[in-house]
């Protein structure tokens, strides 16, 4: 009966228009299954890889300096936090010559949710402060500044920094808080294809029934027995395995197409565009000749224009977050999600992001002497600083090529240093264009400031910076 059903199934071409799968007589069912599935997925993976590579070309990640050279508008919290290890990781800091040592390992549980970062920042190139240099008689300034500079060491400028990214139902770019909603959407998307195939004509079930009809001896597992060692049942089992494989490979292709049509492949991008609220505090310790100790607090808010919050209504977010949402709710929310993705496909591809931040800095005053150099009564006045910053970024098509390998970052900030007699308020605008060439990103930035940072400098500053950023993993890892 099973044999008849199998022959009928093959004759009717129930497996669909898939390339015929052929098992070797010397193979076991598991070996044939693993090989055929591997071969079928190679093609699918190649296609996915090509799409991903294309996607990465479309999305240069900008340069994470947040300084005045090549500025990026996005704080990528996850990779930074992921780097914490037993001894902490050392990475290049935000300005040239600075290094950041990850100290998350010092506080048990801190890295668990990946939304906190405790770091030590070390400046390997401390400089004598301009405010101090100004107090040295001009005729011996260069010489004395050089001597002071020689005396600076590894402990002349370092800082401790703590950052916290708020994460809840609608904030943050971790995955865990969205997992249940994503799971519900996936469940709705696959509901249709899991109704297929009908179990009466399911070739895989038929394979199991064929095997169930073969008497077993001892602990023998027919899945691990080669077809040629199965005796007279070998050809029947082999045909059943081939039919099951053809059905499953075809089903996989159809499921993949269904999922693509649902727009679920954009979920990662939408979560990456979720609003992110970051708080940070920095305590900086400096040798008086470098400057006064600093205490800074900063609040940053970043968000992508198209994001997961906007993809669903509030009701859908609430419904899908339940332990067992109703099938109807899941389906209607998936439909709404798919519509959102279809309507905003271009915006998702452009990856448009915005950010605003405010930073308040207190600089301690210092009074000291440098008797060895004959300098006494040196004074650095205490001061406060307020920095307001706004940023915008998006991808652009390059030369009408259809793909979007150019990323544009614009960051504008205003520094209010009203009570620092050595500095003056100023505005700084930074425009950075990052062009992606395969695994290589080339950022080019233009910085304009309406004043120099210190009194006595030029009225306006304009500078240009060029960088190169390699993808050492060769796969768009950035």
């Amino acid at each position: 009966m099973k044999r008849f059903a199998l022959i009928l199934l093959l004759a009717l071409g129930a497996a669909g228009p898939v390339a015929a799968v052929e098992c070797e007589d010397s193979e076991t069912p598991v070996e044939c299954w693993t090989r055929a599935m591997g071969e079928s997925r190679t093609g699918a993976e190649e296609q996915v890889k090509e799409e991903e590579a294309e996607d990465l070309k479309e999305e240069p990640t900008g340069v994470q300096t947040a300084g005045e050279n090549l500025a990026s508008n996005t704080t990528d919290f996850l990779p930074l936090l992921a780097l914490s290890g037993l001894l902490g990781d050392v990475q290049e800091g935000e300005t040239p010559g600075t290094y950041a040592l990850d100290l998350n390992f010092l506080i048990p549980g801190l890295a668990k949710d990946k939304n906190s970062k405790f770091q030590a920042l070390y400046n390997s190139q401390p400089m004598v402060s301009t405010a101090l240099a100004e107090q040295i008689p001009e005729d011996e300034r260069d010489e004395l500044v050089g001597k002071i500079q020689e005396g600076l060491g590894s402990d002349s400028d370092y800082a401790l920094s703590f950052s916290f990214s708020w994460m809840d139902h609608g904030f943050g770019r971790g995955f865990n808080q969205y997992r249940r909603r994503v799971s519900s959407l996936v469940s709705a998307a696959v509901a249709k294809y899991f109704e297929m195939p009908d179990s009466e004509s399911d070739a895989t079930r038929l394979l199991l029934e064929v095997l169930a009809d073969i008497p077993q001896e001892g602990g023998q597992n027919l899945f691990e027995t080669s077809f040629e060692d199965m005796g007279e049942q070998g050809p029947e089992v082999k045909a059943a395995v081939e039919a099951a494989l053809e059905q499953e490979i075809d089903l996989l292709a159809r499921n993949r197409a269904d999922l693509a049509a649902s727009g679920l492949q954009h979920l990662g991008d939408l979560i990456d565009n979720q609003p992110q609220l970051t708080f940070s505090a920095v305590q900086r310790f400096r040798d008086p000749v470098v400057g006064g100790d600093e205490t800074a607090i900063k609040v940053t808010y970043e968000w992508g224009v198209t994001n997961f919050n906007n993809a669903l209504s509030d009701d859908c977010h609430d419904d899908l977050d339940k332990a067992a949402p109703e099938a109807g709710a899941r389906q209607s929310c998936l439909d709404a999600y798919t519509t959102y993705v279809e309507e905003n496909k271009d915006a998702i591809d452009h990856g448009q992001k915005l950010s605003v931040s405010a930073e308040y800095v207190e600089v301690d005053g210092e009074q000291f002497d440098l008797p060895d150099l004959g300098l006494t009564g040196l004074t650095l006045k205490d001061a406060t600083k307020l920095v307001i910053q706004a940023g915008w970024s998006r991808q652009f098509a390059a030369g009408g090529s259809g793909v979007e390998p150019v990323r544009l970052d614009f960051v504008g900030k205003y520094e209010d240093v009203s009570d620092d007699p050595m500095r003056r308020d100023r505005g700084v605008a930074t425009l950075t264009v990052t062009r992606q060439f395969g695994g290589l990103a080339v950022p080019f930035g233009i910085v304009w400031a309406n004043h120099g940072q210190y009194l006595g400098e030029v009225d306006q500053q304009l500078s240009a910076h060029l960088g190169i950023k390699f993808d050492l993993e060769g796969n768009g890892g950035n």
Partner: protein
Amino acid sequence: MDEPFANSNVPVNSTLKVKISGSGTANQQFFVAHGTFERPDRSREEWMDTELRAGLSRPLAATGPYLGRLDLHFFNQSTARVEMEIVDSGGNVVDSYDESVSQSSDFDRTFILLVVRAPAATAAKKAAKKAAKKAAKKGGGQ
């Protein structure tokens, strides 16, 4: 995973255990798991991410074919691990499966192909009974 969890000789009243986990913290695991499981009576159940991550157990109380399709849907680069085990009624591990997969998108499907059987002695008795019945029927018909 290309390789299925397949066994054609699972003792009845065994238990199938399935657990999905990922490397890194929960926030780094950009994937969700989903599965279906069909029993010999053709009843189907859906396995959701939450229960798969917590680890689920299903008794294999009836003889016959059990068919599962276990999917891992990826939304960013992550590594997922699938652990499965069949434990017989005496607590002995009959078969086990432990595979990991790393992807950044798309989905990965692992098949569960099980044939659950009565113990050999019981099966032999049943077969003999069936044959005897058949013979008696045949004899009665003549």
